[in-house]
């Protein structure tokens, strides 16, 4: 049993925790950006602006139907061919944000469509502009309905940061692989460690979501 803890030398543990830091960094930045961008795209899709909305909708559908790993490869390996050189951390953030924005946009569009038509008509007939109707009446009601699917999407974002190990971003999963490559006795303890860390991270996220849900209800 003592062998079990051998994996967690100070150096290994520090190395893994640094990886966790990168995982959390990519996640937090991508969550914030994709919530903003996804909301904007979702509203564009919902508003059915002539030409523009269907163009955005088509692009959004393409992104949504690609494997995330392919998008990560694209931002890290293909963009430099077009003269865009992103550091590995930011290449991951761009890929995660692009993919998650597309997923969230569909959730936002659906949430907006689930708001009763009467809410729009009541507000517009009351003299509110389209923008005021959105901000004060429709979006707050839509987000309330959208919290559970948004949170499950954000949880998958956090989990999917592990895919960036595919481009050798030194996040938690990649570093875990490095550590257990030293000694096959480390495989189970390190994977177990990663299991607990990812679980706590995402479970924490769902607890925050529950708190929000209760506060808004």
């Amino acid at each position, binding site marked *: 049993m003592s062998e079990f803890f051998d994996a967690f030398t100070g150096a290994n543990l520090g190395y893994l925790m640094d990886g966790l830091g990168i995982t959390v960094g990519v996640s937090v930045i991508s969550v914030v950006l994709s919530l903003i961008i996804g909301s904007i795209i979702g509203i564009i899709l919902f508003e059915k602006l002539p030409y523009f909305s269907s163009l955005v909708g088509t692009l959004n559908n393409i992104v949504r139907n690609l494997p995330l790993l392919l998008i990560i490869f694209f931002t890290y390996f293909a963009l430099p061919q077009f003269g865009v050189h992103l550091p590995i951390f930011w290449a991951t953030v761009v890929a995660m944000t692009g993919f998650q924005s597309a997923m969230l946009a569909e959730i936002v569009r659906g949430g907006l469509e689930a708001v009763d038509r*009467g809410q729009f008509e*009541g507000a517009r007939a*009351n*003299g*509110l*502009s389209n923008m*005021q109707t959105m901000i*004060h*009446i429709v979006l707050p*009601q839509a987000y309330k309905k959208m919290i559970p699917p948004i949170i499950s999407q954000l949880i998958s974002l956090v989990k999917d940061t592990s895919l960036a190990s595919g481009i050798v971003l030194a996040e938690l999963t990649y570093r875990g692989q490095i550590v257990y490559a030293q000694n096959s006795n480390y495989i189970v303890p390190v994977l177990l460690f990663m299991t607990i860390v990812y679980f706590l991270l995402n479970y924490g996220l769902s607890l925050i979501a529950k708190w929000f849900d209760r506060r808004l209800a």
Partner: protein
Amino acid sequence: MSMIEFKDVQKYYGDFHALYDINLKIDAGETVVLIGPSGSGKSTLIRTINGLEEIEEGQLEVDGFDLHDPKTDMNKIRKNVGMVFQHFNLYNNKTVIENIMLAPRLVLKRDEAENKKIAMELLEQVGLVDKANAMPSSLSGGQKQRIAIARSLAMKPKALLFDEPTSALDPEMIGDVLDVMRDIAKNSSMTMLVVTHEMSFAKAVADRVIFMADGRILEDSSTEAFFDNPKEPRAKKFLSQVEHH
């Protein structure tokens, strides 16, 4: 002075001709009731007046604005023309008092203390002061509709449109809502256009009755003339049907 004027207005939903040759003039301060069988175009007509439905042909002038002109700012009309809906359409995410105060705050930039004072007076008028901080979901249909009326009145509109305001209510709730409407008709100079099936209300408060069927205005008479001696056979038939209830 005319508040609302339709000239040869046509409205289509695809191939369906929803409003046919509508010519109608409503003066400021008039109370007009619009009746007719379901599917006759009453709701469509009333919804064109604040631009919730667009017209395809003809001219529609409301409060001096031309609604068929794409340059017309619809929000300016809606500021002066309120609407009360069959299904209330209260803001589900706002308390009762916030429902009433929101549009005056955002659109009229009314001072907050003044806004609150007016809202409380309106709650008093509709008899729901104790519900100021309630959420709409906790109210009965009749209470919701009285709040919806208060919300419209808070904008101090020149005209108020009622689109079947009592049709979704339980019978015992209808009286309270009609009382509030009767009070507005009697005690204010507001122009009122009411789509309803409540004939006793029409008889009691309307200056004029308009009868519609199949997207056309078939009869436009003073209230007395309409109920005592309807000219149109379809209006006669309609009246005999609704009065048998």
